[in-house]
């Protein structure tokens, strides 16, 4: 009589079990990341005395009223007009008086300023904020080294969105979206011209060096949007 061998445990159903689990996770997984527009709220400041006087040319004023109509710099406009205005706001001839002042930044200026503030910072450490100014100029040096001379927009320049209480969220989003479209277009152009990569690829990338590039682009075209209360909203 032949000795009966112990049969191996049949592992064929293992695949079935794994498949079942696999399908469960396939169905429950949501791979889409939330898609967002980001914004930073202004810090709460106790008792505002008077808002600092701003020159008219330093502000791009966009107003959306309760009927969702748009006013750009005091003129009736459409949502689609905002983008071009934003581009002009950042990128215009230096001589133009209607738009924020542009300051040409080049290597000679950067080197001169760094030497100046290095001297000041070592003579007066910890006071007058010379150290901070020095760091700003040192970063500008990095920018110049990366992309060459560029025009820096005045640090007082900002885009304001004035809203009525009854303005719909949809209108606010489309205004914000158009402003970002303008800024992003400028950043995209510069990114492609200087780094040869699409901006959208590096914007959220975690690869080393990519965020440095993004920082440089943001320095040249900073996002300065302020949500303001409409002055006389009816």
């Amino acid at each position: 009589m032949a000795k009966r061998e112990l049969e191996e445990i049949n592992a064929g159903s293992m695949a079935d079990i794994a498949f079942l689990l696999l399908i469960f996770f396939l169905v429950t997984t949501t791979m889409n990341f939330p898609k967002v527009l980001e914004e930073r709220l202004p810090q709460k400041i106790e008792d505002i005395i008077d808002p600092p006087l701003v020159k008219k040319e330093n502000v791009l004023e966009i107003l959306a009223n309760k009927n969702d109509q748009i006013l750009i710099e005091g003129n009736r406009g459409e949502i689609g007009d905002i983008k071009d205005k934003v581009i002009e706001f950042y990128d215009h001839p230096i001589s133009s008086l209607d738009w924020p002042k542009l300051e040409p930044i080049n290597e000679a200026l950067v080197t001169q300023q760094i030497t100046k503030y290095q001297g000041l910072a070592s003579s007066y450490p910890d006071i007058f904020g010379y150290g901070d100014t020095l760091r700003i100029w040192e970063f500008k040096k990095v920018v110049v080294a990366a992309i060459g001379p560029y025009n820096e927009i005045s640090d007082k320049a900002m885009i304001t969105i004035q809203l009525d209480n009854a303005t719909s969220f949809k209108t606010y989003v489309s205004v914000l979206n158009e402003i970002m479209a303008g800024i992003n277009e400028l950043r995209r152009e510069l990114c492609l011209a200087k780094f040869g990569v699409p901006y959208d690829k590096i914007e959220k990338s975690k690869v080393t060096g990519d965020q440095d590039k993004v920082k440089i682009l943001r320095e040249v075209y900073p996002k300065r949007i302020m949500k303001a209360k409409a002055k006389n909203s009816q």
Partner: protein
Amino acid sequence: MSKFSKGKKKSQPAISTASLPDIVFMLLFFFIVTTIFKEKDTKVIVKAPIATEITKLDRRTDQIYYWIGKPSNKNYGTGYRVQVDDALAPDMGAIRSYLIERRGGDLSELWDKVINNFKIDEKVDMRIVKNVQEELRNEDALKVAYTLESK
């Protein structure tokens, strides 16, 4: 001829499926790792507006969710209501106390990194949004993101 066929026909050996479980398990682990179950149930109906300049938000960052829209259950009224994380806020003060609780509690270390993720119906007026954000500013929760639809 006999060199090739030795009388009885040999059947083709079946393809081994022994490695199939391995492959499936590999896929399985991938999905287990990437799955996130955190999907809060919403008590308000929201149709977010469409935008083009949107960026992806990493889900793993700490977020507080806000929904603003009309309640799906009519028992909660017919006006616009604000839901913060899991519960409908009865008033703006409740939002504030929720923020204070989170700020003093589990998020105390990372408060300035927390993203306040708003999902707002397109018809909601900015007054409500402003009132909610005023509470956020009171508690120094300044990072805001609006979840929107892509085209």
